[in-house]
Structures are given as C-alpha cells and as structure tokens.
C-alpha cells in the first residue's frame, strides 16, 4: 500500500479577476522510503503541492489518502493532528527558536507532540553530527548546522513523511551537500519517506525519484536509479 495516494488533486485560488489553478489534476502515488525531489519553475505549483501533502492547505478537488486513510481537509485542528502524527517539515530559513538551545529545540517539539524523549533527541543530534553542540543557542552555530538541527527537529517526533521546502536555498553548495547527506542518512536510518521542493537540479542526486511540475501539472515523473 502506498504511503501517499493523490488522485486528480486541484487547488484553485480566487484572485480579483480570475481563478488561478495552482494545481490542475495532479495524481501521484508514493511508496514508503522513497526520496522525491519536486522540481519546477516559480509558480509551477510545487510548493502548493507540498502544502497540500502537509495538510497545511486543503485541495479544491481530488482525493488524498495517507497510509490508507483520507487526509482531513478544511478542519484546522484535525489537519494539525495529522501533521503532528505524520509529518516532519524543514524550512529554508531553519526557523529554530532562538531562545532555546539546540537540544531544547528538539525537546520542545516532543513536548508539544506528546512526550519528551531526551534520549531520542540526543540520538538524532548525534545522527546529524551535532552531539557537541547541544547546549549552544542557534545564533551560536553556522547556517548549515542550524539546518541540520532543523532536520533533527523534524525527525524528533518520528514522522512518516519528511517535507522540505527549499531546505538548502539558504546555504552554500558545500554546506548544501553536507546537509543533504545528513538528511539522506537520517531518513534511511529512520525509514522515513521524503519529499523536497527545490530549484536546485543538483539535489536530484540525493533523490530516488524526480517529479517535475509546470502550470500545476506533472510534466515528468521519473526514478533516478538511486
């Protein structure tokens, strides 16, 4: 059974003079453990698709099943619960909480999601190579390290799916590579499915499958052989 089964997904936005179809009949199935990179020009609909997959946004039409169950839509708290139980999210600008240390950034998410598990938090920080930085504040570490903390944080509550939106967009190429390697290692270790939105073609080498979008439609969907 695929972990994600999206059929005929559409997302329309009503603008002042027209209705914009950000997604126009997208259908995808994703198997557990896949690492997908979503590519496409600006306005192609890749972030909208990511938002719908994360249940941050509700599609206008179509079906979306996750792990065999229909994903809630339009109900804020049910969508939040879905995200909490299933989704990890990594942002371009890291968005770590500046008042919390590296370790506390992970513990906070655990606390808000159910229970604190310091052992797992420490394991994850070790997994992303930051076991020596646990007591530092985000402002005291580099951008690449911050993004690795963000990855560890997104894994802290053991999600089934990790989503990343331009997660290396704010990093130089060397740091990007290091972050992506960490991400791949972590996701393989944790057996987590990954979908990443990016403009950066170079990231396709870390994917098992590349989906290209344009004008809200899938224009290609190919495995990479990784």
């Amino acid at each position, binding site marked *: 059974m695929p972990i994600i089964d999206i059929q005929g997904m559409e997302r329309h936005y009503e603008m002042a003079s027209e209705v914009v179809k950000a997604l126009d009949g997208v259908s995808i199935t994703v198997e557990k453990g896949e690492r997908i990179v979503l590519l496409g020009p600006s306005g192609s609909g890749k972030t909208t698709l990511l938002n719908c997959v994360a249940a941050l946004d509700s599609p206008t039409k179509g079906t979306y099943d996750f792990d065999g169950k229909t994903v809630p839509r339009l109900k804020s708290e049910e969508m939040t619960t879905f995200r909490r139980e299933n989704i990890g999210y990594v942002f371009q600008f890291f*968005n770590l909480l500046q008042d919390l240390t590296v370790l506390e950034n992970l513990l906070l998410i655990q606390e808000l999601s159910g229970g604190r598990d310091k052992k797992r938090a420490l394991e994850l920080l070790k997994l992303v190579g930051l076991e020596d930085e646990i007591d530092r504040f985000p402002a005291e570490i580099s951008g690449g390290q911050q993004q690795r903390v963000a990855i560890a944080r997104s894994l802290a509550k053991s999600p089934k799916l990790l989503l990343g939106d331009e997660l290396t967009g704010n990093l130089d190429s060397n740091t990007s590579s290091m972050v992506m390697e960490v991400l791949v290692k972590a996701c393989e270790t944790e057996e987590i499915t990954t979908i990443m939105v990016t403009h950066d073609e170079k990231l396709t080498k870390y994917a098992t499958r590349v989906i290209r979008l344009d004008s809200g439609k899938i224009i290609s969907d190919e495995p990479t052989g990784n």
Partner: protein
Amino acid sequence: MLSKTPLAPLVTLFSRSNLLNKRLARSLWRTKLRLSAVVFMVAVGVFAGISFGAYANAATNLYDDIYDGEGGVNLPDIWINNPSGVWDANESSNLCDSISQNWPDSEYELKTCEQRLVVDGIMFYSDSGSEETAIPAIWHGIDEGLVDKVWMPEDSDLSSGELASSFDEIVLDSHIAIDLDVQLGDEVEISSGSDRMMYTVVGIGFHSQHLFYAQEGMSLPADDGTFATGYMTASGLERLTNFSEGSSNLILIDIQGTPSYDLQSTDDVDEGKELNFVIDELSELMSLETDVPVSVYDRSGVQSVEFLRADAEGAVKIFPYVTGMIAAIAGITIFLSLQRLIQSQAREIAVLRTLGVPKLSIMPGYIIAPVVIGGIGSLIGVLLGVYFGAPSMLGLYEKMIGLPISSDVDNSLITQVVLISMVIVLLAGLRPAWQASRLQPLAVFRGQHEVKLSSRRLQRFTASLPTTVGLSIRSSLRKPMRVGFTFFAVGISMLLFGSMLFMLESMEDSFIGGIKDRQSWEVQASNSPGGEDAIVEWVEENGGQYELLINFPIGLEDDNREITAFGLDNISTVSDGGSMIMVDLMEGDIPVRDSATMQVLIDEGTSVFLEWDTGDVVPIYVGNMQYEVEISGITKGEISRTIYLYREDLSQMVGIESTSVLIQLSDDDKSLDGLAELSVGYTKKADAINTFETLLEQQKQFFYAIESLGVIIAVAVLFNTLLMNLAERDTELATLRVLGAPMNKLGKMMFWEHLGIGVIGGVLGAVFAYFGTVLLASSMVQWAFYFTISPAPSAIITIAGVVIGISVALTPFGMWRIKKMNLVDKVKDLSN
C-alpha cells in the same frame, strides 16, 4: 520665499520624505488595534489633565474670590476666640479699644475690630407631620458688619433674599436650606441652651466658616440635613441665648491689605512671620485684658478656610502628576510601538538605505508619527475633557461642597495639558526615530539586527523546567526594556487604581473605624460653661450613663497652629475598655494620673509634624499660660491633631468642668425628649457614622471612576505589549503550528506566559501602588488632615489580581490570533 528662511532645510527635508511618510502612515494603519490603544492613552491623559485641572483651578479661584474679591466676605486676618465663655458688652468693647490702642508696632495697620457672638445650638425640623429632628447647629450674630460678612452671591441659584435686619429674622446657610428645602418666608424653630424660638427665613447664603460644611472638629462635610448654620442679627442671637446686649465670644480683626500668613502645609517656611508677631503680641495683650484663656489665630486656624485651601492646594499639586503619569504611559506605549514598527520595517528601511535614501529622510516620519498620534489623541482628550470630564468633575465638586462653581475651562489650562502631553509623546518618538535612521543595511539583511543571544544564565535557570515553560519565561524576558517599560507603565496605572483602593481602605478605617470601634457613646450633648449638671441630671433620670468631656484648643510655643485637647474621665485602649472614647495606642503607655509632670497622649500626626516622641517633655499653651507635659504615648487613627489628657488636669488649665457630656442611653429608653432644651446642641453617634458613610459613598463614585481609568489604562498597556510579543513571535508560532503543535498546548504555553507576566506585573503593580500611594499621601497630609496608608492585604490582592486577570484574559485573544494565522502564507515567509 520659504527657501530663503532658516526653516528651508527642514521644509525640504520633510517634503522630500513625503512618500516615505505616506508609507509609514500606511504601515501604522495596518496596526490599527495597537494604534488605537496608543491614541486612547494620549486622549485619556489629556482628558484627565483637563478634568483635574479644571477642578484645581475652580477650587483655587473660588476661595480667593469669596474671601477677598469684590462682593466677597472680607475674611478677617486674625480671630480671637473665647472658647470657654462669653464676654459681656463692656468687656467686648474694652477689648477692641485695647487692641486699637495697643496695636503692635509692625508693618501691618489695624483696619477693623469687630465683636461677634457665635454659639452652638439646635434647629428643630419636622417634615409634614413626621417625627421632629433636632439638628446640631451653629448660630452667628452678624449685623451687616465690615468683616466676615454673610456671602450671598447675586448670580447664583444657591443664594437668595437679604440679610437679617430684625431680631426675629435669620439667613439660613444654603447647604441646610437646600437639604431641608427651606424657602424664603418659612419659619424655623431653633434653640441654644434655653427656650425654642421661631425665626423667619429672609435670606439664604453662605459664611466663610462654613463653606466647608462640617461640624466643628469633623474632617468630612456633614451629611444632608445633619448640620445647620444660621446668621441673624446680634440682637436676634442675644434674644435666643438670653445673653446681654453686646455680648461676644469672638473678635475679628481686619488688617489693611491682605497679609501673608504661615501655611500649615509648609513646615520649613514661615510665610507669616510678621503676622505671627502681631498674633503673639495680641495673645500677650489678651492675657492681660481678660481672665479667660483665649485663642488667637490667623486663617490657618479656621477649619473651613484651612480645609478648602488644603483641598485646592492638593488639587493643584496632583493634577500635573495625574496628567504627567498618564502621558508618560502614553509615551511608553508610543515608544514601544514605534520600536516594534521599526523592527518589523527593518528590511524596508534597509532597502531604502541601500538605494541611497539618506538617514535624515528616514527620521522625520518616525518623529511626525508620534506627533500626529499625540495630536489626534489630544484633540479627542480635549473634546472629552471640555465637554464631559470637566463639567462632570466640577458638578461633582459643586454637589459635594455645595458652593456655586463656574464650569468654564480656561484656555491656558487646555494649552498647558496639551503641551505636557505633546512634549512627552514627541520625546517618546525621538529614540525610535534615531534608531530607524541608524539601521545598518548589511546587518539587517544578515538578520543580525534581530538575533540577540539569549541569556545563558536564564537558560541555566530554566533548563530543568519543561521546555514549554522555559520558552515562556525566556520569551517573556527576551526584550527586557519592553518588559521593564511595560511593568513601569502597568505600575503607574496601578498607582491610579491602587491609590484609590488604599486610600478608600485607609479612609474607611480612619473615618468610620475611629468613631465606630473606639467610641461607645450614643449621644454627645454640648453644654454651656456650668451647664453640664442639668444634662447629667437628665441622664441619671433617664437611666443612662455619662462621661464628661472637655474639648479645648491648645496652643504651641512659637507656632500658630493649634491642637484639640480631649479631656477624658478615663483614658483607655479598646482592649482595656472602660471609657466612652478609647484610643488606639501605637506606642508608649496610657498616661499615669497625678504624675510629677502631667502625662498626655498625642496622635501620630502631631508626633510627625512637631517631631515629638514618647518620653519628651514639651510645652503646651492654654491661652497664654504655658504648661509642661510629658508624652507617655502616641495614638493612631486621628485625622485632626489631638492631645489626650485626664479631664481633671485639663479642667484646671481651662477653668471649666466640661464642654460636652458623652451619653450612653438606657436600653429601655432611647428617647432624647428634653435634652435639646438643656444642651446647646447634641450629636448622635449614629448620625455621625451615617455622615461618614454617605460621604464615603459619594467619594467612592469618584474613586471608582479613577480606579476604572487605572484598569482601562492597564488593559491598554498590557494589550499593547502582549500583542507586540505575539506579533514578534508569529514566525515561531507558525513554525510550531506547521510542525503540528496543537492549539491547546500553544494555548497553555501562552497562558503560563501571560500568567507569569501578570504575576510579576501584579506584584510590581501592588508594590508600586502602595509606595506611590504612601508618597502621594505624604504629600497630601497637612496639619489639619493627617492619615496614613496601611498595606491592606485585600487591596494588595485586588491590585495583583487585576493585573493577573487582565494579562490572562488576553490569552484567548492570542489564541484566536494564532488560530486565524494563514499557515500557507506563513510557510511562504518561512521558506522564501
């Protein structure tokens, strides 16, 4: 033309930044809610300033006009009072002659010396068949006179008719006439220690000694219909009292011009040095001319005059503080709001700076903004103050004081208040404007301007707590300046709220507690010298109990002020019992009878003002006679300056047995039939308590208005800060929401955060309010009016509770804000 003026560079600068200012105005408009809170604060400051200022101006100008203005009463400069008896016509005349002939060699010249007779009495009143009420009264024998005339302002609805010209005519004081709805032509039945007589009311007016309409020695105005005063001809009063023609007990002296007198509120300055010299000389003269002890005093010794002066002085002192405090809160909210605005606009400013916009073009907008906000707030405040606040305040004052008050608001007052507010708001905008112009584009683009390393110490302190709690604490303290200013502003608003609470508690304790808990008499009947026997006989016949009391003014060495002496049969504390007037002993011991040096108790206020302590031996004066007394202890709870002695000691000094009889009525017979004819007036304790309670009720309305103002300001301040805290954390909260944080947990986190701010703010607010009120009270207390503020637990809990309540009550708003957050838009911000 302008380009050639010195203002040209400024004009150029402001016009060059027009678009920037427009951009700023739009940004401000986007924060309408917070903007309106700031405008509200300014408006409240101006409103309060105009309302209080109008009251202060009215209070100050009114008395000057009444005392010395054209058509005023021509207030005497010196009073010579015979509290223990009456001089006959011959003595009276001789005294004035002697004063005229032996007038001290000073810069002041005697203008007039007039004798008066003023007596206690009773006014009998029954309304359409109801039971007759005996109202304690003071009757004045005043022919037209040159000094201290009856005041009957022609342009006021509160006075009417003409002066009494026949022995059976009377001018009733406007206060009692209004209370009892007495009209011109009505007949009133009155007495003063002998037969009742009927007098026709020919006028309704005021008298300088009763503008503050209170019974002698009382610190609060009398309740409606519980105190009467009337002004008849000298012959009319002689008829009532059976005194011989020309009798008097008061000599009024008018000096050429208006001499300065020593103000009781200025301990260190003797404004009336020359007048005091005259008073001392006259005291000396009186001791040679008359056998009875007399008091010689200036305006500060006249209760009504002194109270109203103190009231006006207090109002003049307080109004700039109130305006300034509220304007300061407005300034703080403007300062914090602008800082937040600059923080949120940092990138825009950085882009503008990168594109070459000079620093000086950035600044004007941030200076104009508070000026515009202040201008709008001031305009609203002026309108509200002129058309609502000042008329309400003056109306309330007129109602309380019972005097005609002009409701005009002076233009100079409006200008003064608006200027204070505008200067404060302008100053509040200067630093943020300077900060805005100093932003470094590179630092902004790198995000360095906002990243502030969290405190390591705070991290260690909160490390063992759940992360959510730790985050709440750290987030709350992230901006120490903001939190500090917020607590300061909340503290000031709680000073407004709490000072009223503390004062109300203390006043209730002092005014009502004093008479309710420490006095067990039911009726106090005043007697003429030697007239106590008849009253005592009446009490014994009616199965009651009694104690004799002497109330007498006591003088001080080289000091024009007086203390009221209480000569008691027994001096005891509430716990000891055994006296109808008991004391609350603060320190020391009850005086020992027949000590080598006569022992006395003094009240706390006397101790503070004269710096007298337990164990001190001090001189006191009865008339011109000096006595040495030892202070055995200090009492608390007295509003007026008081000294307690054993009656037998005081009796020897003043030469009379009693001035009144304290009576506990028999349980079987509470009737007072016949007492009116035997006494020169009596007061029922229940009436006195009612007077206090009614007045406190009236005061409470005013207090509640101020309290509400304090709470509203605290709401606005906390709302402004918490909203800024939330807005600043939008990114954090959005991140947590995207990562699946449930609303209830975020709500809990916010609740604890607000609770924390509330608890700290509440405690600081209570501390601020208490010490502020103590400071305020210490600047208000005067010789004639002393009270202390006690840290009443109920008031402290209420203040802290209000701040905590306000803070916590804003949690649902914060949650609603998070709930309506558009996560899709937020994610764009987080990733683009």
